[in-house]
Structure formats: C-alpha cells, structure tokens
C-alpha cells in the first residue's frame, strides 16, 4: 500500500507526492506540477483517485484553510477549497515518476544496489525516489572526476554495470553522445590513473553529475564506524594484518549462549507452538547486531553513541529500537545490541539482558517515526484503569530501578533519572 501522501489519477497512470506548505522540505530537485488556470486545477483534482473525506482532511491540515482568499472561481466545497490552495501553490503535487503505471497490487519498484568493502550500500535511484524517502542520505561528489573514479573503484562486474546502465537508460543513448562520452573519459584520465574508466562508467558518472540519478547511501549497522578511513572503493582499501581473535587462542572456552532458564523457556515456547519457525527466524533477523566492544566513560556517552547509530533507521522504518546500558567492572559503560520492536513499543531486555557480572544502569530506546497519533517526543506514562497499573517508559524505568534514554523522531536525546524522577533534555543527536 502506498503512503497516504502519495496519490494517483483514476487510471493509475501517474503518481504524485502531496506536499503542504509547512511540511518538512522535500529533498529533491523535481519541480511541482504547475497550474495555469482554475479550470485546469479543478480538472486535475477531479482526475485524482482519493478516498472519501480526503480533501476535507487535506484542507484541515493546511495552515490556510482556503476560506480567506478572494477568488470565487472555485466552489465552496472541500474539493473546491483544496483546488484553490493547489492553484495558489500552498498545496503542491510532485510527480513520482518511478511509480507511474504501477498499481498498488504490483510489487514495489526495485533499484540496483552496489556495495563497498566497508559494507555501505548504495541504491541507484531516480530523483523521484527522494520524494518518498524519509531523511535520504545521498552520496555527494565534488566533480565528474571523483564520480567516475568512485564508480570505477567499485569493481562491478559487466552484468552489474549493464544493470545500472539499463536503469539509467544509457544503453539506448550511447550511439548519440559517444563523442561526448569519450571526451569525459579522456578528461578524467588526464588527471589520474584510476581503474578502468570505460565509456559506460563515464556516461553513468555524467548522469549522476547531472542529477538525473542519485546514489542513496545506507550505512551498515553490523559494524562500528571507523573514523580513520574514508569510504574507499575496493582497490583503495588496505586491510590491516590479521590477528587472532579471543575465540581462536589456545585454551579458549566458549561461553554458553543461553542460561538454563532461558533454554527451558525457549523449549516451553516451542512446545506451545505459539510461534512458527519462520516467525522466530524473522524475529532473530530483526535484531540489530552491532560489534560492540567499545566502552565509554559515562552512561550518557554510551547511550548517545548507540542512539545516534540507530535513530535514523528507527525513524525511516517507523519501528522502535531498544537495549540496555551497563557498567563494566572497570567503571566504564557499554550497551547491548539494539533490539527491533514494534511501531509503539520495544522490549529492551531488562536487567537480565546485560552480560553476566555487569551492572545494569539504564535502558535506551528510540520512538520510530513521527506519527501524529502518538506522543512521539516524550517519555511515556499512562495509568491503566483495567489492570490498575502504570505503563510506559517511565514506569518501566521505575519498576526496574534503572534510568532511561530516549531518542525522538525529531532527533532530541532525553534522559530520565529514576532516582530523581526527572526528565532532562541532553541535546540533539
């Protein structure tokens, strides 16, 4: 199902992203659809496929409700007021071309992905994808040379190159601008000696440079960020000498993965048949695996580090993530891997989730996306008259006698002290 702010015409030929003045800015160069007359606007509005009450809701959410403009060419209905706001440019429609001629039932459009050795994935997307992507991170290049060098450095096979070229529509256009492509290739080669910069790669670089396509960046969650190395293409990466891990040293005894009580619990659950094997496998995959052997001087620093790493993913997926902060024997602090929760809750694991011998001091969690139905920016607390109990973030901290951390959709980082029963804004992530 499409997002509620993506609508299509009645014949599902064209899709549009609706943007109301005051909404978060869109990260795209695409120009909104233009309307030159009231008649044209009304015809366009009539052609759209929307659910009953859509125009009323759209106008109600708009900072200007369309009542106060002295333009009587539009009818005094919700649709008429919406048409007026569209005509005035207060509500805009951006064409989402990559969805055109696709019905909701069809599988969503997919775009080719390329990877670097660092594990960063780049998805090659047209500009209209940026209209429907939350907080897109785009790979930026200074000039054509850098773009071509980057693409060449990815060491893609010919099949993958052809796949990307086809997506960019380059195969059909090669005969026409072949001289121009050769020129780009020569220009790039004059200044450096990269891996093979073929005409195909040069043409792809030109498309990226012309902003006809973008590389959407996705940081790996499975590895900590390395501050000492840039995001280098394959041939520029120099691996460090291999050293033995603790599990490979003589005399190493692997720790038991689960305690007896946990194993018994898992066995009981299997007997009850509450979850199918597939569902359990899916849940396992949902847990974020960080290589987390870093320790921090304070619990604030540990919580901030993991919250910064996971919050953007939480927002884009509209899913909560959470885990535990614990104190090591040497007085430093670390955190457990983030666990993926649901839209409105997450089980961070509780004190029993921290490694043996460590002291649980706090939990951390994110709040997912900015859903208007929820109180997104605050620690939660609500009294349940059915069970006569308090529920939410604050009661969870109080009952476990640990502090709490919250990363909000707007990037605020908050702290709850169970001892003082106070919430403190630490800052922005």
């Amino acid at each position, binding site marked *: 199902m499409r997002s509620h702010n993506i609508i299509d015409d009645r014949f599902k030929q064209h899709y549009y992203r609706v943007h109301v003045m005051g909404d978060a800015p869109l990260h795209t160069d695409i120009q909104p659809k233009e309307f030159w007359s009231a008649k044209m606007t009304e015809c366009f509005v009539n052609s759209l496929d929307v659910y009953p009450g859509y125009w009323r809701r759209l106008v109600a959410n708009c900072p200007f409700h369309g009542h106060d403009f002295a333009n009587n060419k539009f009818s005094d209905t919700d649709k008429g007021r919406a048409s007026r706001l569209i005509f005035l440019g207060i509500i805009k429609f951006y064409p989402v071309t990559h969805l055109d001629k696709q019905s909701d039932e069809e599988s969503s459009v997919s775009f080719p992905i390329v990877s670097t050795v660092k594990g960063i994935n780049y998805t090659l997307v047209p500009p209209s994808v940026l209209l429907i992507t939350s907080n897109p991170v785009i790979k930026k290049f200074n000039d054509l040379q850098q773009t071509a060098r980057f693409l060449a450095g990815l060491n893609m096979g010919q099949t993958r190159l052809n796949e990307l070229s086809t997506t960019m529509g380059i195969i059909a256009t090669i005969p026409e601008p072949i001289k121009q492509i050769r020129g780009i290739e020569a220009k790039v080669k004059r200044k450096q000696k990269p891996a093979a910069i073929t005409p195909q790669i040069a043409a792809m670089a030109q498309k990226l440079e012309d902003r006809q396509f973008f590389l959407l960046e996705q940081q790996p969650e499975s590895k900590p960020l390395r501050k000492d190395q840039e995001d280098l293409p394959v041939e520029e990466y120099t691996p460090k000498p291999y050293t033995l891990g603790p599990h490979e040293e003589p005399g190493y005894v692997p720790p038991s993965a689960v305690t007896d009580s946990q194993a018994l619990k898992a066995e009981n659950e299997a007997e009850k048949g509450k979850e199918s094997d597939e569902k359990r496998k899916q849940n396992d995959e949902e847990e974020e695996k960080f290589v987390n052997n870093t320790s921090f001087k304070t619990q604030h620093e540990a919580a901030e580090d993991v919250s910064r790493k996971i919050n953007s993913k939480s927002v884009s997926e509209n899913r909560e993530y959470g885990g535990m902060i614990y104190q090591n024997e040497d007085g430093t602090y670390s955190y457990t891997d983030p666990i993926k929760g649901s839209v409105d*809750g997450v089980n961070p694991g509780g004190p029993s989730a921290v490694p043996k011998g460590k002291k649980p001091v706090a939990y951390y969690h994110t709040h997912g996306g900015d859903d208007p139905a929820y109180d997104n920016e605050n620690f939660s607390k609500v009294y349940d008259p059915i069970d006569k109990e308090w529920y*939410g*973030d604050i009661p969870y901290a109080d009952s476990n006698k640990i502090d709490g951390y919250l990363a909000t959709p707007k990037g605020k980082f908050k702290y709850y002290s169970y001892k003082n029963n106070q919430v403190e804004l630490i800052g922005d992530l």
Partner: protein
Amino acid sequence: MSDEKYLDYEKLKTFRTDTTISGHYLKIWNVYLQYAEKTGSSIDIDNYLINFSENNDEYVIFFKKPVTQKIVGGGHGVCRINKKTLSIVECKFIK
C-alpha cells in the same frame, strides 16, 4: 487485525464475548471515532481493549493494548471528552 510483535492475541480473544454496554457510552465512542477520522489516526482499533469511565467533568476512554512481554511504550491511549460540550479535551497514545 494487524500482526504485531508483542501483542497478546489470546487475551484480545478472551474479551470477545457477549457483552452489554450503555448506549450513552456508544454515543461517546462516536465522538472519538469522528475525531480519529478527522485527524487521520493510524491507530488500529482491533488491537485494543477499550474501557469507559467518567468523573465529574469528563468521559475517559482508555485504550489498552495487551502485550506478551514487559515493554517500554506499549501503544496504550487515553481520550478525555468534555461532558458538557462533548468535545475532545485530550487524546494521546503512548509509545
């Protein structure tokens, strides 16, 4: 009913029995429904147990989302409706 990670579907089922409710509370429920429609609420009401109560000034609708684990947040909600004006005083869900 949507598939949610922590939702206690068994508990939700146990409340689906013959029941009697005041028509007046259904009238109050209608106030919430209109509000939810107007604001485009994304709440899936199938996942909730609903409790009606009232004090001197307000009707209170409590939305409880039964869960199988102890979690932070939880998705519970409270909607307070003014008795005289039947207008929404506060309506929020927690996460």
